[in-house]
């Protein structure tokens, strides 16, 4: 395991922790952005350049902005009374820990037996593009549809409704 990996992992994990633990929502949003960035770097490290850049473009460029906008529009800057954590936070923590335990255990148990490739894949963007319109043309179209619907839906849902007959 290269040291780069550890640094990037720490960055990502740290960002994630910060996102979950911080009090101010805006700080959380920024922290999650850091986590996204860390992940993107991890992708790059894994030789998935397209995925990494797509991550940066989409997540940091769109999702994080969205989150910030949402915080903005919902007055998220104000601190709620009674704490940011729910009264039963321990239960949630335990559940999350349980999930991690299970996943970890699964990983440890199975990775021993899975043979692993070390060779670097030679995948170009052109290959990805060919695949998109070739083999994966259907999912592509569907995702396009999905995105359209989602966009329109989000707009409609979040639109300021006139007071009409209820």
């Amino acid at each position, binding site marked *: 395991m290269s040291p780069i990996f550890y640094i990037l992992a720490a960055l990502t994990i740290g960002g994630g922790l910060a996102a979950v633990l911080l009090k101010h929502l805006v700080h959380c949003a920024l922290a999650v952005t850091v986590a996204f960035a860390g992940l993107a770097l991890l992708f790059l490290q894994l030789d998935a350049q397209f995925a990494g850049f797509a991550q940066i473009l989409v997540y940091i460029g769109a999702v994080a902005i969205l989150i910030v906008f949402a915080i903005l529009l919902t007055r998220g800057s104000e601190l709620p009374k009674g704490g940011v954590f*729910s009264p039963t936070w321990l*239960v949630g923590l335990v*559940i999350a820990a349980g*999930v991690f335990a*299970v996943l970890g255990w699964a990983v440890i*148990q199975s990775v021993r*037996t899975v043979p692993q490739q070390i060779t670097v894949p030679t995948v170009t963007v052109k290959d990805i593009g060919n695949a998109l319109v070739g083999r994966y043309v259907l999912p592509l179209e569907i995702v396009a549809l999905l995105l359209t619907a989602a966009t329109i839906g989000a707009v409609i849902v979040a639109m300021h409704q006139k007071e009409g007959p209820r």
Partner: protein
Amino acid sequence: MILEVTPQSAASQITGVLWLIPAAPIVASGVIALLKQPHRKFAATLAIGSLSLSLLLSLIAFGHVFAGWARGAGVREIVDFTWIQFGGARVALGWLLDPLAAVMLVMVCLVGLLIFIYSVGYMAHDENFTRFFCFMSLFAGAMLGVVISNSMLLLFMCWEIVGLTSYLLIGFWYQKPSAAAAAKKAFVTTRVGDIFFLLGIVWLFSQTGTLLLYHRGLGSIEPLALAVLLTQHAGLGLSAAGAIGLLIFAGAVGKSGQLPLHVWLPDAMEGPTPVSALIHAATMVAAGVYLVARVYPLMSIGAAPGGSTAALTVITWVGAATAVFAALIAIAQNDIKRILAYSTISQLGYMMAGLGLGGVAVGMFHLITHAFFKALLFLGAGSVIHGCHDEQDIRRMGGLRVDMPLTFFTYGIGMLALCGFPIFFSGFWSKEGILEAARGWDVSKGPFILLIFGALLTAFYMTRQISYVFYGYWRGHDVAHESPGVMTLPLAILAFFAMALGIIGTPAWPWFHAFLDNHPAKFDLHVFGEFNLLVLMTASSLIVILGIIFGWRVYGNKSPKPETFDAIEASAPWLWTPLHNRFYVDELYGVTVIAFYKWWARVADWIDRHVWGAIVADVAWLFSLWARLNRFLDVGWVDGGFDKTCEEISEGGGLLARTEDGRVQTYLRILAVAVVVLVAILLWSARP
């Protein structure tokens, strides 16, 4: 004397319609019962008319029987019919016509008719006029039914109806407590006799297999059956015949007021005077005598020649004792009707003694003559009471022979007939027959002595009564007046018969006896030449005259005031008191029978309330307990259980609802947990 058995001829026309004789008055009674009170004339007409019809038919029947007797052929005609049939057994009822029945029919109808006519006047002021005639008609019909009945069952039924009407008529003025009590007393006392009567009937039926008296040789008192009964022994030295005879006599004791069941008769004077005349002098009380005469063959069978049976001996002694007992009490009474009531009891005793001593004809003759002169005396007393403005105490009367001459005259005739004044009065001849039979009784001379003594007493107390009522001076209130014609006419008619009837029973021409016993009657004046008979006649005449003189000496014209003592009371109070208090018989019954009955009633009441009532209450309490238990179970367990279950379900539902709290994070958590569990299971199962 046993009636000769004559072949029973086929029923003639009159016998066929004989049932009309009792039916007519009963139907009239039914119609009158439906009438309202204002229809008095109609009611009276109906009653008198129906009884006239009965009288007419009775005369025709009598004529028929007489014709048969004159021919020398005895008449006994029977008509039977089946009342109920169960399988093979049948209950037969029927009527018969023979000399005994014929004379009784004529007597009852005639006397009854005269009394009905009298009642029209006597009850004119009473508001219950129609009810009176309804009951009187019913009585007349039932009495006639007793007379013609051939079946013991039918006789008993009519007997009971007679008792019922007696109750209704004694208690006619039921608003008076004394009248209601007297009616009850009469009914209950006669009931005691009737129980024994019924026992006798049942016994007779069980032994002879039939209730019919005469039935072509198979009847219960015909020789065939009697022979059987004679051979059966019934304990106490009696044969079955004798025992049954005595049981039946017990019924007669109640109805005819013999000792010891005589107590109801004096109290029965609470009823209106015509009732006393008809029922308690002439007819109903005679029914007992008639009954004994009817079943005479039963009583007399098995007698040794010249001797007597046990049953007849008992009857004789009871009769003789009653005759003297009642006569003694009559001396010390102050109510005009009560004196006559005790006189009736005494004369009934004579009749019973006559039956026992001399047979059917002797007793029946006295019954017939007594009916007329006693009815006459009662109606006369009624006339006196009416004239004295409803006064009944003889100490408040007096001098009435001047104010009420007709009544006095007829009353005097009746009194002389009752005493047995010689020659011209029927009572003399009828009593003569009894005394003659008593003298000739071989068993004992005791009854003879008693009866002679009784004759003396009779003359004495009747003289006393006459002197109190008709002689002396007036001690009452207001002025006495003579009664109207409608009342004095029957008196005259009855007076005539009181005198004339003697002719048919004199020893010189014993037509009555011959008629009943079915042998020719010869007119023979030489009979009077017989020494013994002459002695007896003279002796009895002397006794009567002695009694009258004695009575006149003591009472005469003296007319003591009510406040002063009676002559005997003053001179011999030790004698007066028990006589005046009627030998304390009523009081004796009061402390024994009635007291026992009251005690028993109290016991029964106590048992009813505390034992049966307690049981009922306990059962009810148990039920209420059960109900409470049920309620407890129902509320506690069923309801409670149900409610609890619902509560638990509700709570459970509440608990479950907490999983649906509408919060997203809860749902997420559950999702996560589920995922963990599922993955864990998956991994666990995929272990190498």
